[in-house]
């Protein structure tokens, strides 16, 4: 018991140290840009945690991030690396946007939301499922294909909003017309947080339960741990891998829909703000534990919102927060492991037979 507690404490200490190191390092970068890091962190802190509106913004931003983070975590349980969150988020948004353009006004708002969710989940699931199928049929690594499919998805989005789906009565910007107010995700109570956050929280709970308690979750862990052992135990490995990837893609697609119907209301260039990539990092930060993924997503959303204050208060480009995110990840992934090291030295087992 004591040993465990000590190990946990050591782990927590290392984690805290890692975060601190990332903050100090980023501060150093900021100094070279002529800004005052202490003031900057103060601004970031005030403008996020201490500010009710900003907390709302953080949760709004976190919603698609949580969903896209789960989209990485579920395939990861099965040993798959889904780097395609970005593309799947876009495909979800495109599907929701397409549904909106086709059906807006013909259906009651609530029904529209459900139809958009279904369309987005389907689109995201198919986009990810494509990578899984390629993996299984022609053995192309899914990390590479999902990555390349991101660019294809971006080009598809741009193609649509520059030509066929462009709002002819708009300001001339490449964007679709805005989603009808009735079809938008409602706000929770009097807050500025939309129902997408509820969707994200529910999804987290569901995925947690599925992975922890169901036979499906167990089988995914078996496949992820040793696919050959799974095959030899008679598990339907291909179906399980595809299911993991499709569920992941569907979650990311849902994230795209939440972002579209909750925050953007229009399809426009750059609308996804690297959600897929940030979520990937959140998932790895949390080692694919669904509850921790949600937590990490909120943390990264916080940093991202803090980034806006960087721009306003310190005159730094908003994308500079990517440095902070990157440093946090480098520090956390590079911190000492609390699990014991394998006793192997340079590939030679230390204990002989």
């Amino acid at each position, binding site marked *: 018991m004591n040993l465990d507690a000590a190990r946990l404490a050591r782990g927590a200490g290392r984690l805290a140290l890692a975060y601190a190191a990332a903050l100090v390092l980023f501060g150093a970068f900021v100094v070279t840009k002529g800004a005052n890091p202490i003031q900057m962190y103060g601004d970031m802190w005030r403008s996020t945690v201490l500010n009710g509106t900003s907390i709302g913004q953080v949760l709004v931003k976190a919603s698609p991030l949580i969903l896209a983070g789960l989209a990485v975590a579920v395939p990861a349980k099965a040993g798959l690396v889904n780097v395609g969150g970005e593309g799947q988020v876009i495909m979800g948004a495109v599907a929701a946007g397409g549904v909106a353009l086709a059906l807006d006004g013909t259906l009651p708002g609530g029904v529209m939301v459900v139809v958009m969710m279904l369309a987005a989940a389907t689109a995201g699931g198919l986009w990810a499922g494509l990578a899984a199928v390629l993996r299984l049929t022609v053995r192309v690594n899914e990390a590479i294909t999902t990555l390349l499919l991101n660019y294809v998805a971006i080009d598809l989005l741009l193609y649509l909003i520059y030509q066929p789906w462009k709002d002819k009565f708009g300001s001339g910007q490449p964007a679709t017309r805005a989603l009808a107010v009735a079809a938008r995700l409602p706000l929770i109570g009097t807050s500025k947080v939309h129902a997408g956050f509820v969707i994200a929280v529910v999804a987290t709970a569901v995925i947690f339960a599925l992975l922890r*308690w*169901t*036979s*499906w979750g*167990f*089988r995914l*862990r*078996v496949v992820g*741990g*040793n696919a*050959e*052992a*799974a*095959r*030899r*135990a*008679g*598990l*339907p490995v291909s179906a399980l891998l595809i299911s993991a990837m499709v569920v992941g893609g569907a979650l990311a697609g849902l994230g795209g829909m939440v972002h579209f119907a909750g925050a953007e209301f229009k399809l426009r260039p750059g609308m996804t703000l690297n959600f897929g990539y940030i979520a990937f990092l959140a998932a790895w930060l949390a080692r694919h534990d669904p509850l921790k993924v949600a937590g990490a997503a909120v943390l990264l959303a916080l940093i991202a919102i803090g980034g806006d204050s960087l721009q306003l208060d310190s005159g730094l480009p908003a994308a500079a927060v990517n440095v902070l995110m990157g440093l946090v990840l480098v520090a956390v992934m590079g911190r000492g492991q609390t699990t014991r090291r394998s006793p192997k030295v340079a590939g*030679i087992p*230390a*204990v*002989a*037979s």
Partner: protein
Amino acid sequence: MSLLTEEVAAPTIEGEPLLAVRDLTVRFGEVVANDSVNFEVRAGEVHALLGENGAGKSTLMKLIYGVNKPDSGELHFGGSPVRIDSPAAARRLGIGMVFQDLRLVPALTVAENVALALPLKGIRLDRAGLVRRIEEAADHFGLACDPSALVRHLSIGERQRVEILKVLMAGAKLVILDEPTSVLAPQEVDALFAGLRQLRARGLSVVIITHKLHEARAIADRVSVLRGGKMVLVAADPTAHDDRSLIEAMVGRTVPALPATRPSPRAAATPALELHGVSANGDGGHLALQDVDLVIASGELVGVAGVSGNGQRELYEVALGLRELAGGRVVVAGTDLSGGGPRAAIEAGGVGIPEDPVADAVVPGLSVAEHMALADLKSVRRGFGIDWAKVRSRLAGLDEQTGLRMAGAGRKVADLSGGNIQRVILTRALGSDARLVVAAYPSRGLDVATTRRTQELLLERRAAGAGVLVISEDVDELLELSDRILVLHAGRVAGIVRPGEADRYDIGELMLQGAK
């Protein structure tokens, strides 16, 4: 020239030993792997180090080769005390080691592999010079090889030869071979031993680690025996000891004999396994199994002998629905597997003990109990979830029934040793009431007592009416266990023999040359 009747030459050089080990002790945590061990090797002798698995043979040799560090004791080489704290230091002294898992890179050529092992300098790789040196050395030591061949394309025996050549080219005066014969057919063993005699004739010293008595007798000038980390017999003349006393030195206790009277196979019942004209491709796409016909009756144990890589792996896999057929039919307990894959084989009542459990059967992050659930997920299902209480109670029953002393239910497999992982796999497979048991090298990595218990369990399954297929590289084990022995050569059935009617040499001939 037969292996068993080969006359043992007297030690050629007397006097000061080339290598002397004095009171060497090494501990791994609680375990004392070598306990005040004394050992010596003379120049120009072949010295066999005998002992069962886990006796500390490899540990001792790794101490000499600088991989392991002693906690106390001394080493003398060439008459003076030395400290060997790395393999590089050992090589500088002139000590070379041929490991069981050869230190070769399959994707590189023989010459490139040799280059890695030599202390070369400079940027440019002098390929022509290298090839010339290898050819000269091959000639000098009588170990023929093709320097420009990719190691990937060589047989195990050829790879071993390359490895020995590599060690010699690095200037070894003492060559240590760690169980070199375990992957070879008897006749290939003869070739290896002929090579070793050549080295002896050139004044080089050889230490050969083995647990096979007849091999020690065939090649060694002197033998030493390790048991439980202690040297129980030091540098003895093998002719002065009979087999019985050497076995007792190795094992220290008598192993119960296997039951001699066994129920006869139930020819009338549905056969446990039928292979009709089965062909299958290997991983490389070549035809690895051709036209295999085999029927295993209920209550029959069939052994499979062959030099490794002659279709054993593919045979194992087709019997359990793990590999697609290129032709023919596989029927398990009356169920045709056609296209049904592993699921169909499992449902028909087939279980397997794979050749490489770490690669093919276990999931490192899962517990022992979770592995038990994996064997039969359907029966422990509860709604969408799994009934873990049921899994645990079943597991306790299995452990008692098999008596293999498996690790605790909650232990993660990643934390278990190879032997303990094998126990988990054996318990899972041999505790079930399967109709067909296919076991590939079931006693690998186990001590003598557990090996014997495993063999008993295989016979128990047989007695209970299951068909059993045992693939092994140990022909003696197969002769002891099997009702019939199938010999594979180049993917074909070279012959099926009955233990009473054939000896190890007849089988060895089939293994090497195929059917006549």
